[in-house]
Structures are given as C-alpha cells and as structure tokens.
C-alpha cells in the first residue's frame, strides 16, 4: 500500500509539474513535453511491459485533469512508450552519458510529432492551412530554448526516477523479509 501511494504521489507531482511549471515556462509548446520525457524515462528504467503500470495512470490522470476526459494523449503515449522500447532494444543504446542525451532527443522528437498531429487536427476542424501551420511552425529560438532547458530536466528526472525505483524496491524487499 505504501509503495502504491508513493507511486501515485510521484505521478501527481509530474502532472502538476507539467501543468503549473513547464507549461508556464514554455507556453508556446502545444505538447506535454515533460510528460513525454517521463514516459521515456519509465520505459528505459522499467522496460515496456512493466512501464505500463506507471505510464498509463500518468497519461490517463493527465488527460482527466487537463481535459476532464480521456484524450488522445494516452493512446499516443502508449505507442510512444512501445516505440521507445523497440528503439532501445534494436539500436542497443545504453541509457547513460551521451545515450541519455539521445533519449532526451527522442522525447523531444515525440513532442514535435505530437504537435504536428495537433496541427493536423486543427486543419481537420478549421480547414485553414494557415492556422494549422501557425500551430506547428514556431520561431526556431522557441524550440532551441525549450530543448536547452529540457536536457537537464530530462536527465534530472531520469536520476530521480531511478533512485525512486531503487527505494521502492528496497521497501518491497524489506516487506518480503519481514513476512518470511
């Protein structure tokens, strides 16, 4: 039960960080970049099947808090987690050093793709290519600044989650030993 509450608390913190910190710092970004970074981190640390127990509640809760409904982000994040897992196994990129920077780029690329899909939705709804373009084509410096800030945030998140998982594992082990 303790482990469950810790996990839920971490997910809530991540969601609030996205809504009240990241979105205020980078208001032009139309994709939840930090949460996509968190999805990548969970996939790297927990591997795909086990990551679902963290990424699914994360994205469903985010959709529920943000839109008051289940949105497409949950589905997108699921496919993105699968893609990340597939990529990490096929390309055998280790998640340390430069590898971590590459995974941060993967998360950033995922956010850009989400933003592109968002502009497609706008095109579908408004039939205005100009409006769809303005949803996606932001000034270059906006992307650079977000990327620059995102690298340290992604790496910090990676180490926080890694420590957090280690701590929860120790709690589980202690509980197991007590039972025996």
């Amino acid at each position: 039960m303790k482990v469950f509450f810790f996990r839920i608390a971490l997910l809530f913190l991540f969601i609030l960080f996205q809504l009240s910190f990241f979105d205020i710092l980078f208001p032009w970004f139309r994709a939840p970049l930090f949460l996509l970074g968190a999805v990548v981190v969970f996939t790297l640390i927990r591997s795909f099947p086990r990551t679902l127990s963290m990424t699914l509640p994360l994205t469903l809760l985010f959709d529920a808090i943000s839109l008051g409904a289940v949105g497409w982000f949950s589905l997108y994040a699921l496919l993105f987690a699968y893609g990340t897992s597939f990529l990490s196994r096929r390309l055998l990129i280790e998640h340390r050093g430069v590898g971590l920077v590459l995974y941060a780029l993967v998360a950033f690329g995922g956010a850009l793709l989400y933003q592109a899909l968002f502009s497609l939705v706008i095109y579908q709804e408004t039939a205005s290519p100009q409006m769809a373009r303005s949803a996606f084509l932001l000034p270059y410096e906006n992307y650079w600044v977000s990327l620059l800030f995102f690298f340290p945030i992604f790496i910090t998140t990676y180490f926080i989650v890694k420590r957090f998982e280690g701590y929860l594992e120790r709690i589980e082990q202690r509980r197991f030993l007590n039972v025996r």
Partner: protein
Amino acid sequence: MPQQKFTQTKFFRALLVAIPILFFLFFQPRFITEPLRTVIATVAWPIQGMLSTAAFNIRDGVHFLSSIGELKRENDRLIEENTHLSVENAQWQAVASENDELRKELELLPRENYSLRTAEVIGRDAAGLGNWLSISQGSTQGITIGMPVIVYGGILVGRVTEVFVESSRVMLITHPESAVSGITVEGGAQGIVKGEYGLGLLFDMVLQDATLTSGHRLVTSGLGGEFPKNLLIGTLQEPRLSTDHLYRQASVISPISFDTLRYVFIIKNSL
C-alpha cells in the same frame, strides 16, 4: 531458440492496453474524470501555486538576462516617453475632473466600475486543445461560474467555467467552444467572437451590409448578459466573406498574449 508466441509479444500487450483506451475515448467516463478533477484541483492548488511562482520567476529571470543589452536603449526611450506622458497626463487630469463634474451634473454612473478580484495564474492547458487557465481564487473568495475575467485596461480574457475551493478554471475566449457577442467601436457592426483552438479569434456572423475594416476595435456588446459592455476584445484584421458567403467575418488580434498572463481580474459584479 523457441519462437515467441504472438500473445507473449510486447506488441500484443500494447494492443491489449490500447483497446480499453480507445473504448474510453469514445465512451468518455466523465462520471469518474469530473469528480477526480475536482478533488485534485482542491488538493493541489498550494503545490500549483509554488510551481507556477517558480516558473514565472525563472521566466522573468531568463527574459531579464536575455534582454540586458536592450535595456539601456529602452530606458532612454522610456525616459523620453515618460516626459511626454507626464505633460499629457497633466492635461488629461484637467479633462477628467471636468468630466467627473459633468457626470455628476447629468447624474450618470461612472462607465467602467466593477468589483474586481485579483488572481494569479497557477496552471494552464498543456496540449492546447483545452485553452484554459487555472487561477488562485475559488469559492472561498466568492467566485462563481460565469464570472468574466479580464486583464488591465478592461481587456477580455475569458470566463470562469469551473470553481473549486481555492482555485478556479477559466475558459479563454480562444477556446473553440467560446462565443462572445461583440460590436465594433467604429462601425457598430455586431457579430459573434469565436475562439480558434488557442491560435486566435474570429469575428463571425456579421451581416453583409455591416462595415468591417482592418484596425477597427472590437468590444463586448453586452448582449446575452454574460459579459458587461465595452470590454476590449481586440482589433479586426483581414475582413472577408464567410465560406458560405452568407455573412462577413474578420480575424481578431487581441492586444494581450494569452500565453504569458500572470495576473488576471475577475469581475464579481458590475457596480
């Protein structure tokens, strides 16, 4: 090596999880999401307040550092402008006192007199589809659903759509579901201002014989009673016929950037 069964593959697991998500997407479980949202908004506002303050401070700091070179030039320009404005202000003060006296004589109420409540932005929409702001005032401070939200100078931002104990959610006028009755100051053309997915505003449903000109100012008309009269919405741009050629329409440029708002004012009631 034994071949892995399809049901043991990651792809199958991903599919298995995608099916309930798709189910929820089409049959939205709002009876779960709405109470959950209320509970979280009630519990999370102190954390949201701390995070948003930190984010605003970092943003301001970065902005300050990046613009340090321009500050001297800007300062010189502002000093010059300030001198001009001081002179102008003195002239306007004389006009204002004269206006007050005339109003008293005619027994007119002051024009823009609202009971306002200041609120800080503590969260905003991430994916861009929602187009809302979370603000730091809620039912404890007497905020109710439907109250208009403005910024300095009476510029319309949106209206309160959800109220929690210590926070509220504001639907921006750029929200696709937002509709505000507007009128141009110069030509008196009436129509509806619709949100365009957080990307802009559209002044629509204007009769064909009305005059729409680029640069004309658009304000709330007060029709429908949702918003008080004369709140500034923006200026018109690119007047054109609607796609069905029945009405005239124009893009609206708001004088404020909805992305960078930190403080807003809630109109509790018109005095």
